[in-house]
């Protein structure tokens, strides 16, 4: 196997292809079954269009998902894939990424999957900094179960399970990730192919857990949730495109955005810029710092290099005080 150094540290160890597959070859033979107009389609297209650029062998890419509309994603990509159980994709991916440094491992999850039932695995993956790329399709609703509010739904949302309005403030996924000390946190919008591709490339390049929140429209149960960020008249005013080193004014204070800052000061301030009204919504990269990854450390454990031959093994079995019966 050729193992080449790529411009992507996040993919170090993953073999590159002689002839990378095309976007079309990344599409599986399975019929795509989301609702007409679902934001998941454009994300799928963007991912299929972006993967060839990584130059990897298709067989060394794995997509692991939980349960939800978004979690059908792996079926549509002609890579290795697993559609697992609700909320557990980060845990499964952790086992895979830790044992297999030669794979590029992606997680696809929804706002319910990642932040409701799967919240704990998500924050632990970020804390450990496993080399995983997590795509969180946030449509602020439970799509697959037909429209209950999710932990990112705005407070007071009227849904099937909250006819009197939902109670409780929503999570801010970016702030939560920062609180868990995530090394890479970004946000993108389903329909913004350029912005999404850019963020995906940065995520792939990042060595460690990369959380990418993708605002995704669910035309059936939460249509237009992000409409103001898409319609050209409004979006220019509302979207704050993040650039490292640029200056942003927040609450009368000015912040030079430093994605690599240890204190994550600008990242934090920017993460809380949107108070839920979407008056100003940052997209792009909030944070991108280096920290040893969990899987590199496990695989790099010096003890693994010690001699583990048969002699050593059978002497381990024998222990300190064996005796012989003649």
């Amino acid at each position, binding site marked *: 196997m050729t193992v080449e150094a790529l411009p992507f540290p996040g993919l170090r160890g993953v073999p590159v292809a002689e002839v990378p597959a095309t976007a079309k070859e990344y599409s599986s033979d399975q019929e795509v079954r989301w609702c007409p107009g679902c934001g998941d389609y454009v994300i799928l297209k963007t991912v299929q269009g972006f993967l060839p650029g990584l130059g990897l062998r298709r067989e060394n890419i794995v997509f692991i998902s939980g349960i939800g509309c978004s979690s059908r994603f792996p079926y549509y990509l002609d890579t290795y894939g697993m559609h697992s159980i609700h909320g557990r994709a980060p845990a499964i991916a*952790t*086992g895979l990424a830790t044992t297999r440094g030669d794979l590029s491992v992606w997680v696809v999850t929804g706002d319910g999957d990642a932040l409701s039932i799967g919240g704990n695995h998500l924050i632990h993956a970020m804390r450990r900094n496993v080399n995983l790329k997590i795509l969180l399709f946030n449509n602020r609703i439970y799509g697959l179960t037909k429209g209950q509010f999710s932990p990112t739904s705005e407070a007071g949302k009227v849904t099937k399970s909250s006819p009197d309005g939902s109670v409780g403030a929503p999570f801010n996924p970016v702030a939560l990730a920062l609180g868990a000390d995530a090394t890479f946190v970004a946000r993108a919008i389903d329909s913004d192919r350029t912005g999404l591709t850019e963020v995906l490339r940065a995520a792939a390049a990042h060595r460690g857990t990369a959380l990418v929140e993708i605002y995704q429209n669910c035309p059936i149960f939460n249509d237009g949730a992000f409409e103001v960020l898409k319609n050209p008249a409004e979006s220019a005013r509302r979207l704050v495109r993040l650039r490292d080193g640029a200056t942003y004014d927040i609450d009368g204070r000015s912040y030079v955005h430093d994605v690599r800052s240890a204190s994550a000061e600008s990242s934090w301030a920017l993460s809380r810029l949107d108070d839920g009204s979407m008056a100003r919504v940052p997209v792009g990269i909030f944070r991108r710092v280096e920290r040893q990854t969990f899987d590199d450390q496990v695989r790099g454990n010096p003890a693994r290099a010690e001699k583990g031959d048969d002699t050593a093994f059978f002497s381990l079995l024998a*222990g300190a005080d064996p005796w012989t019966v003649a």
Partner: protein
Amino acid sequence: MEAKTAKQIDSIVIRFAGDSGDGMQLTGDRFTQESAVFGNDLATLPNFPAEIRAPQGTLAGVSSFQVQVAEHAVLTPGDAPDVLVAMNPAALRVNAGEVARGGTIIVDTQEFTARNLTKAGYRSNPLEDGSLADYTVHPIDMTSLTVAAVKEFGLGRKDAARAKNMFGLGLLSWMYGRPTESTEAFIRSRFAHKPAIREANLAAFRAGWNYGETTEAFAVSYDVRPAPMRPGLYRNITGNTALAYGLMAAARSAGLELFLGAYPITPASDILHELSKHARFGVTTFQAEDEIAGACAAIGASYGGALGVTSTSGPGVCLKSEALGLAVSLELPLVVVDVQRGGPSTGLPTKTEQSDLLQALFGRNGEAPLPVIAPRSPADCFAAAVEAARIAIRYRTPVMLLSDGYLANGSEPWQIPQPGDLPSIDPGFATEPNHETDDGARAFWPYKREPETLARPWAVPGTPGLEHRIGGIEKGDGHGNISYEPGNHDLMVRTRQAKVDRITQVIGDTWVDDPDGDAELLVIGWGSTYGPVAEACARLRKQGNSVAHAHLRALNPFPRDLGEVLRRYRRVVCPEMNLGQLSMLLRAKYLVDVVGHNQVRGLPFQVSEIEDALLIHLLEVGR
């Protein structure tokens, strides 16, 4: 002084008991080790409180370690101790009642203060009030003797006194003529970097020996000769260690990385602890955020071509159950270790029980069959782990390995396998397409099965041309794409069941011990009841009774001949540390009126108890 006499005996049961801080587990371990090296057969039973260190001197804080050593094969740690070493009043109070009538009790008198007696709930001093008249009591001021013996090393009184467990060990070692080298070596290495403590422990140990040798109190020592054992290299081993080694051996035999995803839980944590030491042997341990993540990470590792393992106890199995259903559906190898403890809920975390059998079989939604294997003794945990892993790999299935708290912490001599003893296991990874489509193209079908085993191919990421997607939604037969077709679902449900049923191919026939051949009573057990049941049968046979003993290692599927075996006997009795779980399964499957003998006390059966129960059955069946 004249040489003391040594009396020949064929076995002895000793219990060391003291405060949690008194080092009783270590003392017991060392005595066991000395006896093992000496060549006795033996079995041990540690017993400690759920609290880390309950208040000193209280009944709740008592920790004990029992060992039976013998010149013949030994299957249990013994019912009643012949000798009790009690380091304080609480230890005496908790344990004295179980000592065999006429047995020996050795106490550290220093601890028998008014305060300690009250803490232990004594109204008068049992050493003085005659309540121990049925025993031979040796009151020894072990603390003072120890402090005096170690004076020269300049330790504070507290540190000095702490060596008193070594005094006790020395004394018992003398009494039973144990070889002392291994303990001396142990002390030297354990305290290599603390010379004063090292010397103090050695001195205390020798002082104890000399006390026995010198004083009038102990007129005789005892001699328990080595037991006949198959020639070979032996060691003493606990169930958890043996289980961990078995998993490593299996992975090694299959040429696979071993990945353990686990969350600490009593009494399974030591498996995690043990495996975490062996990165050099290709073992990765992942202490997960919870049991769910432990199981899921192991599934991820298996998907990537490692031997995924997850270890836990009953409450953890609850949490893993959804993930195990996924593993059943994905048909990937996985070993799930359940070290059973007292339930329900948190229950009795440090005690033993066999009450997760039905959970292992049925604790998942839908028809989600998986094989279940149970070891029968601490050393057998090694072989059972190898077998579980082998089945998991060969049949591409999660396998439940049901140990228990007694096996986990108990120990016995184990004949160490030699290179070449281990079976070779072929993971048989898929490397190329396995199917021809209608238009003649070669394709990979992840659910196209091997006809003999019904196992599906194991195609790991990184294999070119075999890209495929799997998941927990019902899959179409063969191609493995999502299928909601009613007939396909029925077929897949039955196929998964058939695959597990086919494991009878490799588990062999029922293990039956029926030396007389004319028994009308069959005792059938599983797991750790093996020791007491086998010993009870042996005793009954010595008394001239015929009784047969079957012991199951595979609880799912059952051996092919099991129905026939059960029907050979007029009565079938099934002793279990639960309310009758195996009984239920046998009755349902074979319509045989299996009678349970059940006990749920958090403790292994006593041999005598089973013997008594069986005697009644023998009377009833008229033999």
